């Protein structure tokens, strides 16, 4: 896996908690949120991402702990 998942270092991006496909790119195989070093996001983007992932977990769109 590439170190930087995305290179969205400028501008704003919005994370929707319903957008499972996008959110899944930012969690590892255990379902944990990736650190900023790996995601390559800005602080604000990372905060929004974390919020979206937590919301998606609440409505069971993505798992809290992935069991493969």
């Amino acid at each position, binding site marked *: *896996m*590439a170190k*930087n*998942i*995305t*290179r969205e270092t400028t*501008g*704003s*991006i*919005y994370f929707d*908690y*319903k957008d499972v496909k*996008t959110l899944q*790119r930012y969690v590892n195989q255990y379902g944990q949120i990736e650190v900023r070093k790996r995601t390559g996001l800005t602080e604000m983007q990372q905060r*929004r991402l974390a919020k979206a992932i937590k*919301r998606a*977990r*609440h*409505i*069971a*769109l*993505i*798992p*809290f702990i992935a069991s493969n």
Partner: protein
Amino acid sequence: MKSTYELAVLYHPDLEIDIDKAEAKVSKIITDNGGEVTNKESWGKRKTAYPVKGHEHAVYVFYAVELEGASVQKIESVLNITDEVIRFLIVKQDEKAQSKAASFRAKRKNPDADEKPERTERHSRSDRNEEGER
């Protein structure tokens, strides 16, 4: 002052056949508390990522609701004791971030054009190389 909220509702999986009845019940809860459903998006029956109240599946429906801030708590307390609803989520829409992101994406796709509020699909972007995707 009313604002736009997003309401995600997970219905009991056995209600898939006559979902209308359950949806009418939820709509009534919203209107009774001075809300107004402006948009509805149904995903149908879907496997949940983990068991929710013992159910492996749920019927997903998303609503866009115009609500008074004070009525959010009331709706939450009613939904909590509604048997048809196994899980729900009410969040305020971050319209500022959404429109900003949309205009940024549009600008990046077409730098000469002025701000366009139209949403562009992430995956149709031409400026992103394949290696960056994963």
